[in-house]
């Protein structure tokens, strides 16, 4: 025991700073395989290794959108006695009771990316989907003429993220492009559905000028659809959402014309930092906005530098 204490003291001296109180944080992500979520998860891991005294327990649901398995994981973590929880709720309202229970038991809860409706959280770290999607809609409208036919590839319409992005897009787009017909390709965050749907709609409507996507998996699916139909880069404009790496590469090749990036890695980073601060009893702001970045061919170099691409 004494030996251990000495070792800790030596380590603390070596690092040159006072050792932060070591905390165990449960991080419940929404997906471990989706490109955007992998960036958020990467940011979370970075926060833990930068801090040095955070033990991060990362768990994901069995498949994206599975509320029941997420609730199960949440309760297991609370039962294991983690010091704080950072969660990306699969469903805003669905996790409310569990979150209220954890807070009542004294475990701080930080919501990442998606808010919680029906219960307070210690902090909510996210970009505002509705606001960013509104910007996306406005920018998209600037790329075409009012009256041009466009395709919108949705996310899952049974989840709040998908609903907010759609509502935001329409709100922004219809401000100045009210005469345009928007043809909808519904998906459940599945790039194959995006690809098949865009192919079907493009075949029947050769006058489509632009495909706007609710996430960059859809952007890549739409790009594949255009390639499958023999279009070249720029024939039909693509607008993305997320600022995922492959979409930025496609932008450099001339396929994608605008992409509203959420600062995904920053979101994960700030989320874990806020959770650690709360676990150590420090004050945490109730709402941390991680902002947005509008990536266009002009700003793509700046964005790539920012995310380290």
């Amino acid at each position, binding site marked *: 025991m004494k030996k251990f204490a000495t070792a800790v003291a030596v380590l603390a001296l070596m690092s040159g700073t006072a050792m932060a109180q070591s905390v165990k944080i449960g991080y419940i992500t929404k997906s471990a*395989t989706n490109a955007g979520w992998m960036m958020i998860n990467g940011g979370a891991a970075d926060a833990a290794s930068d801090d040095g005294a955070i033990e991060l327990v990362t768990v994901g649901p069995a498949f994206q959108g599975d509320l029941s398995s997420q609730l199960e994981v949440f309760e297991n973590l609370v039962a294991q006695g983690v010091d704080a929880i950072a969660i990306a709720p699969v469903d805003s309202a669905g996790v409310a009771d569990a979150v209220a229970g954890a807070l009542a038991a004294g475990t701080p809860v930080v919501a990442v990316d998606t808010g919680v409706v029906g219960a307070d959280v210690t902090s909510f770290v996210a970009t505002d989907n509705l606001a960013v999607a509104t910007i996306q809609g406005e920018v998209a409208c600037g790329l075409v003429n009012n009256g041009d036919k466009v395709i919108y590839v949705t996310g899952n319409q049974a989840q709040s993220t998908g609903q907010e992005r759609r509502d935001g897009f329409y709100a922004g787009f219809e401000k100045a492009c009210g005469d345009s017909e928007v043809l909808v390709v519904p998906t459940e965050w599945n790039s194959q559905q995006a690809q098949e749907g865009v192919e079907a709609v493009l075949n029947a409507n050769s006058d489509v000028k632009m495909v706007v996507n609710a996430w960059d998996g859809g952007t*890549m699916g739409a790009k594949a659809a255009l390639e499958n139909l023999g279009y070249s880069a720029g024939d039909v404009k693509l607008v993305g959402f997320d600022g995922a790496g492959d979409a930025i590469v496609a932008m450099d090749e001339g396929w994608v014309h605008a992409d509203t990036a959420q600062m995904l890695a920053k979101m994960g980073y700030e989320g874990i930092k806020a959770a650690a601060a709360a676990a150590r009893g420090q004050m945490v702001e109730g709402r941390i906005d991680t902002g947005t970045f509008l990536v266009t061919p002009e700003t793509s170099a700046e964005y790539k530098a920012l995310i380290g691409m």
Partner: protein
Amino acid sequence: MSSSQSNNDVSPSAAPANARAAAPSDAGAKAMRWVVRFFSAEWSGALLAVVLMAISIEVFTAGKPFFHPSNLLTIFNNAAALGIVAAGMTLVILTAGIDLSVGSLMGMSAALVGYVASYWGFDPVLSILFGIAMGCAVGLLHGSLVAQFGMPAFIVTLAGLSIWRGTGHLSTGAQATPKLDDVFNYFGRFNPFSPIRQAYKADTLPDWLSWLGALVDSQWLDWLRTFQMSTVILFSFYIVLAILMSNTKLGLYVYAIGSNEKGSRQAGINVKLYKILAYVFCSFCAAFAAILFLGRAPYAKSDYGMMWELDAIAAVVIGGTSLFGGRGSIWGTLLGVLLLKLINNGLTLAQLNTFWQMIVTGLIILIAVGLDIVRQNKNPLRVRQMLIAAAAALAFFAFVTPGSKVVSSWIVHTEHKATVALQEELAPQFKQPAPKQMQRLQTPETLQTYADAAQDSALPAMLFGALSLGAVIMVFLAAPILIYGLMAAYGVALVLALALGLGTVAPFLVLAMVLLAGTMVVDPLFRRAASLR
């Protein structure tokens, strides 16, 4: 077509009595035999469903050319990967087995093939062979566990569903690869005509071929633009497989094992070997489908093929193959896959609300399987009931638009009233309602808009609702005299609908009347078919 023809022939005035007795008017008898043969084929239910689906999409998606060749070819292109997975599944199901792992295996193969091609410097052809070899090895493992150790196929492949998805994610870090080598295009988006067109455009085509170049170029936009290797491979694969199924021991024994495993063993068939072969073939198909999928996808990734096992099983069953094994056909499966893709494509073109699309997809699958059940039943009563049920469904489709207005107005008013009541109840206790509960409170204007819409739609909603309900009741009564009454009711509804300016529902009602008229010829047709036997 054939039914009207045979109708003319049975009419007594068509020919002198003795002539009819001698040769029951050859053309009619021939047509009748064709009809009987058609309906005794396992794939006929699926074909009927595909044709009906295609026609209804064409009729009800206004101004959007569904039957455009490039759209049909796109459906084939996108059906290719699932079609090949389902072909493998058919063999396993014919042996009375099941393979739930195909979606995961397809995802793992796609991810690993892309991975070794992108990061290990494998030659594209070598990585494709690697993927297919790995698929076969997985099939050998599944098949051995099922046939050699007698483990239930459902459990073995359910475990596979989880294991192979996990392996795919783990080995590639669930990261997408960069864009793949062009060799993969030859399994997907490559258009065999595009080199000809390019040569023609660049004027490098030899003279004796210039007519072909001109032809290709002139037909490019309408016909050939979406003619891709996916479609070519899909149909070639099925043709080869169909020949193998009817000419090799594997094809024969798969049916034998499925219908009577014990008997097959006693007859000297190496049941274990052929069961293992069926699983190996199924896994091979999943791995091969992954290559086809990569030929059209933006990159390789381990989350491809989610839920494909369910789509593949659905396609096999829609195609008339029995889940209990021993009965079914490869061609039915192809039609089942096409039906599923047709539904997707058609509903996207129809721009139906997302959640309605889910409901309609389920209903169409039920109708397709219902058609097959009626076909197997060979009972004129069931056929009549099916026709009346279809007429009821058509009246229901006419009901949906006005009906949903009435129902949503009712819901909005109910929600509003309940919220007001809740507020009044909580106010004296100084309590707050739960968040989002107040969302259902409406402004008087909104309530009025809903009420007005409901009032305008009340009459058509009641009319079509009653019609649909009447037809449903008639399914159980099915007395001829009542059906005449029902037909008259549809006629009246049609006139009323046109008078009310609801022209869009006219095709539904006309089609329903045709179906009801069809119930009258079911019995004569069956009698005639029986007399020919």
